[in-house]
């Protein structure tokens, strides 16, 4: 038998099937039990609002935390210090500062030898060595260029 005739007959037979008689009634009953259309929008709105709030909170946390953790987040950059930090070095000798009360000025702890050297430097005790005398005139010896003498070619003359 021709398969195309089979195809048409089978298609017609298996696509012309009707649902059970109470099918439409069951659909109506299920639709009647469904909440109204506007209630389907409420979860969507609630989800969207919750997501927006969560994003907002996350963004504000990020923006609020980043400046606070900025200096520690950049370990390669040294903290900038003004000269005022160096000046109270005289007062920052361990014996002169009370141990239990921290100084309001930021302290730099250095060794005694370094401190003495710095104190001498600021007091002018260390003087840079005088510059070396500069020669008044540069003496340049006279340049002599000797003539080039070619030795005779052994083996006769050219013809």
């Amino acid at each position, binding site marked *: *038998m021709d*398969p*195309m005739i*089979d*195809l*048409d007959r*089978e*298609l*017609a*037979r*298996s*696509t*012309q*099937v*009707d*649902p*059970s008689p109470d*099918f*439409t009634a*069951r*659909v*109506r009953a*299920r*639709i009647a039990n*469904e909440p*109204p*259309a506007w209630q*389907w929008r409420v979860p969507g709105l609630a989800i969207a609002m919750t997501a927006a709030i969560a994003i907002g909170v996350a963004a504000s946390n990020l923006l609020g935390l980043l400046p606070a953790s900025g200096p520690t987040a950049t370990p390669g950059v040294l903290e900038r210090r003004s000269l005022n930090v160096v000046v109270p070095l005289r007062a920052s000798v361990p014996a002169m500062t009370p141990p239990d009360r921290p100084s309001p000025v930021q302290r730099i702890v250095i060794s005694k030898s370094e401190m003495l050297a710095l104190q001498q430097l600021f007091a002018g005790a260390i003087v840079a060595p005088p510059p070396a005398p500069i020669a008044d005139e540069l003496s340049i010896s006279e340049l002599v260029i000797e003539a080039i003498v070619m030795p005779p070619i052994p083996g006769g003359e050219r013809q």
Partner: protein
Amino acid sequence: MTRIRAEYLPVPVVSLDAELEREFESRLAECSTLAFRVAFSVLRHREDAEDVAQDALVRAHRSFHKLRHRDRFQAWLVRTTWRLALDHRRGEQRRLVRQFDHVCASTTPDDTAETRERAGHLWEAIDALPEKLRLALVLSGIVGHDIAEVARLLRLPEGTVKSRLFHARREIQERLQWIR
């Protein structure tokens, strides 16, 4: 301020929701069988097809107020039902049972074993078609080979539908000859 009583108005006053419900009810009456047949052509299991068609119609009711072009309702319903049926078929675990059922569902008790076997081969060939060819072929069977109606349901030009039907039939013919 003058109040106009409803009974004096030239047209009856109905709410928008009531109008929508009435329109959907008329659509439901004319399209429920179509949705079932589309689902049945994929699943070939009566109860499963009714469940899927019911889901599609409930979804249609849910989204009916958002549908701008009401004349496209049938096309939308066909596509939704087709997708839901394919999803259902992929997800279900009763494939072997259904393969047996689809032969029984489309044959009558008077059919011989040979007829049932031929129907089984046919549906295997139809199932192996690419999706767009299969949908066009099945819809043409549902609407009685009316090309214009298939084109309307698929929202395609008639020439495209004819081409798809031609390729679908050719592929089925090749497959059935190979089986024999």
